[in-house]
């Protein structure tokens, strides 16, 4: 049960030895399992998208929906957000105080919000050119895939909000640290999914 090893493997989890660390380890591992299941979900939506790239039914196709500028900005924002989050984790790990952690967290949140706004503008543009999901199988799959990722980011933002409140109320206790660590895993995970989206949906779409 308590295998006495330092738990420094996860950033931000300077919990030392014993019960607390075991508890955190269990929770982080559990969350990891959840992420893997989520990965399968994303992977399947990718696969469905793959089977539907040609199902444009005469409607807008990859060339019409891809705006490389916007994709590049979204990519930058999400990567920046991910990076800011790792700084938040480090500041938590090295006990720079809760305000420092919150500062980096707010950075991560702002970038993610920026990402969502740009994505929203993309969606609006798609609607304007008639690239609505009701138009074709391809567009259904596109909206589902990009939208699912966007929903995850939005949920993440909500979670950051809740975490901020928790940090303000409880301070950086062991429990909170383990939660922030899990949030971090989630955050970086979404970045990985985005790598798949910008390469396989947008870049490959116009290749």
């Amino acid at each position, binding site marked *: 049960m308590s295998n006495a090893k330092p738990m420094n493997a996860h950033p931000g989890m300077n919990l030392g030895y014993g019960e607390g660390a075991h508890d955190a380890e269990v929770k982080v591992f559990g969350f990891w399992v959840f992420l893997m299941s989520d990965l399968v979900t994303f*992977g399947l939506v990718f696969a469905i998208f793959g089977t539907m790239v040609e199902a444009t039914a005469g409607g807008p196709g990859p060339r019409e929906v891809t705006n490389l500028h916007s994709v590049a900005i979204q990519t930058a924002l999400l990567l920046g957000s991910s990076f800011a989050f790792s700084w938040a984790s480090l500041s938590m790990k090295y006990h720079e105080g809760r305000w420092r952690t919150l500062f980096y967290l707010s950075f991560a949140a702002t970038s993610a919000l920026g990402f969502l706004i740009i994505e929203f503008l993309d969606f609006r543009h798609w609607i304007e050119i008639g690239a609505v999901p009701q138009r074709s199988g391809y567009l259904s799959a596109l909206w589902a895939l990009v939208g699912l990722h966007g929903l995850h980011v939005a949920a993440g933002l909500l979670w950051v909000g809740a975490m901020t409140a928790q940090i303000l109320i409880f301070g950086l206790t062991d429990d909170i640290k383990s939660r922030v660590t899990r949030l971090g895993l989630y955050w970086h995970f979404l970045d990985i999914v985005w*790598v798949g989206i910008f390469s396989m949906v947008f870049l*490959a779409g116009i290749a």
Partner: protein
Amino acid sequence: MKPNIKTMVRSVTGEESEERSFYSLGLVLSILLTVASFATVISGLVPRDWMIPGLIVLAIVQIVVHLRIFLHIDLSRQKREDLLMLLFTVLLLGIMAFGTLWIMSNLAVRM
């Protein structure tokens, strides 16, 4: 049994700067790889037939970079379980996703 956190604190500053530069390396690599992906498609230097394979390779490399640096997957003992889980997931996802593409593309040809 609460661990005494305070005593463990600043004794690890060497580790800290190491970690910070590791993360920064991750950032730099990600940027480079992303730029490379975009360049593959828009620079006109890559022949068309090579674009998609190129994108796939770049995406995989970038994902590995993210996993290693931001998600801390490595071969050390405590993390082996995470790694196994990941590999197992990739195996299953591979079966499911490639199975799907295989079956569906075959059906497309036969209908």
